[in-house]
């Protein structure tokens, strides 16, 4: 397993394009990552040769599809080092995964006066489902704040945990600040009080290896399209002891054991939580994406991503009037900033003219915008297929565009 950047970029033909007449520099990986040919071909081949609905018929295509779908589940299980594949539930993405837990765990375990803890740096997807559940149940949402560097206050966590805390939901990596949170410590602290922890891994899974047994997290969620897989597929890992006790989220096919008009009994996990025809093509694509990731030496990939982040941080810091949001000591390849006197929309528009793709706006994290008293930010985010040369092009573009204002 070697790390050959040129070879890797050949796996992502989409990167070798001109946008607005300029060589594409794709720095919006935290929004969605590009897919390697290995994933695209696997999905195409499946659609061209094997498609049939899963778990429902005896014909060859149906059986082959079921096999491929369950094989994808096993790939995810192994990637997360989960105890059993039944603990891996396929969802449409992180958002659905969190909604599932907020809804079903909330129904089973959260009552009036109980408390749920999230953090100030969560993506809306890890705030709103909990808020909705708390409103239904008359429970209270409490928030762990972060400091100016973008690091969570562990002292605050200690004081926020009470006898009424029922679950803690924390992002692995902040989608705005890039902060790699001390999730192992949080889980350890929570478990001392028997409180389960959900980790939103939408931004964590693309960069870090996850061992759910070593972490001992109760739930871990991530999206396929942020780890080189397709859109519309995601994962909810949950410990069996919780999933067994949680009621189904959606009702429909596959999730049932037996239906009569008097009473319906439900299937076992994971099927209990996979109502209707799942996105099996997406799951197969996700399996291919994970296999692709596993074909590289993770430590080398991580080192390269960290190099990109450090180089970009160093370069951008030399720009007058530029403020970086999030300078935690441990970060993933996410770099958000503003340049004084330049609106992020304007900067994003002009960068696009130079073929450079970044994210601008509120980044689905209003509380983070409020923390820094800004309306918007510009976010660049790096993937292992990005090059130091691309970071240099990005830096030069910022210098050039700054003169226009």
């Amino acid at each position, binding site marked *: 397993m070697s790390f050959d950047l040129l070879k890797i970029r050949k796996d992502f033909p989409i990167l070798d394009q001109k946008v*607005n007449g300029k060589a594409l520099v794709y720095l919006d990986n935290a929004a969605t990552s590009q897919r390697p040919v290995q994933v695209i071909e696997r999905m195409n081949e499946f659609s061209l040769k094997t498609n049939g609905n899963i778990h429902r018929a005896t014909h060859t295509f149906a059986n082959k599809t079921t096999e491929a779908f369950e094989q994808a589940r096993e790939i995810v299980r192994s990637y997360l080092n989960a105890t059993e594949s039944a603990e891996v539930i396929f969802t449409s993405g992180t958002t659905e995964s969190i909604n599932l837990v907020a809804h079903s765990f909330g129904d089973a375990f959260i009552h009036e006066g109980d408390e749920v803890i999230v953090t100030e740096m969560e993506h809306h997807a890890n705030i709103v489902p909990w808020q909705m559940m708390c409103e239904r149940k008359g429970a209270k949402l409490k928030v762990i704040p972060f400091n100016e560097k973008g690091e969570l206050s562990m002292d605050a966590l200690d004081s926020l945990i009470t006898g009424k805390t029922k679950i803690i939901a924390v992002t692995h990596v902040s989608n705005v600040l890039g902060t790699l949170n001390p999730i192992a410590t949080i889980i350890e602290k929570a478990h001392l009080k028997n409180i389960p922890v959900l980790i939103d891994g939408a931004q964590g899974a693309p960069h870090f290896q996850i061992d759910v047994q070593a972490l001992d997290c109760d739930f871990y969620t991530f999206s396929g399209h942020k780890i080189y897989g397709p859109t519309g597929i995601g994962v909810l890992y949950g410990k069996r002891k919780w999933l067994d006790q949680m009621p189904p989220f959606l009702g429909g096919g596959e999730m049932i054991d037996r239906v009569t008009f008097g009473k319906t009994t439900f299937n076992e996990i994971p099927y209990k939580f996979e109502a209707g025809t799942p996105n099996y093509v997406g799951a197969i694509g996700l399996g291919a994406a994970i296999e692709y990731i596993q074909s590289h030496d993770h430590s080398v990939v991580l080192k390269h991503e960290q190099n990109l982040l450090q180089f970009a941080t160093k370069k951008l810091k030399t720009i007058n009037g530029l403020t970086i949001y999030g300078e935690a000591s441990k970060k993933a390849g996410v770099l958000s900033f503003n340049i004084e006197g*330049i*609106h*992020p*929309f*304007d900067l*994003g*528009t*002009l960068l696009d*003219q130079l073929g450079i793709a970044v994210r*601008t*706006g*509120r980044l689905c994290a209003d509380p983070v915008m409020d923390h820094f008293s800004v*309306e*918007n930010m510009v976010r660049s985010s790096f993937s292992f297929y990005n090059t130091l040369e691309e970071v240099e092009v990005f830096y030069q573009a910022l210098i050039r565009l700054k003169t*226009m*204002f």
Partner: protein
Amino acid sequence: MTIDEIQQEIIDDFAGFEDWMDKYSLLIELGNEMAPIDVQYKVDENLIRGCQSRVWLHQEYLDGTITFEAESDALIVKGLVALLLKIYSGRTPHEILASEPRFIDEIGLRQHLSPTRSNGLLAMVKQMKLYALAYEKISTKNN
């Protein structure tokens, strides 16, 4: 000048630019030169919210014409807002309803008025037309 003549003038102004940077520089300049909206109108009721940028729009109807005042927090949007005001402000409801802002397309900035761009600009044009429609109804009723 009619709305269409002013639009043509804008199109001609921009036609001279070959480099996209010059085009955007002019928009930024227009945005910078634009008189800010009166603070009393820069309020939430006048806010057209986009995910990417915000636009405030205020209007007054007097003697059969609508005067618009507007502003955006993003300069490129503000430059386009300045151009929209140039063609639509001080016009009768009928003139406003009868004319589309075709200049944006013709100066090669169509993407800024696309529904996929949440910069508030498309919503601003819609809002101006809605005001025009409302005042047109009022004036026909009064006649």
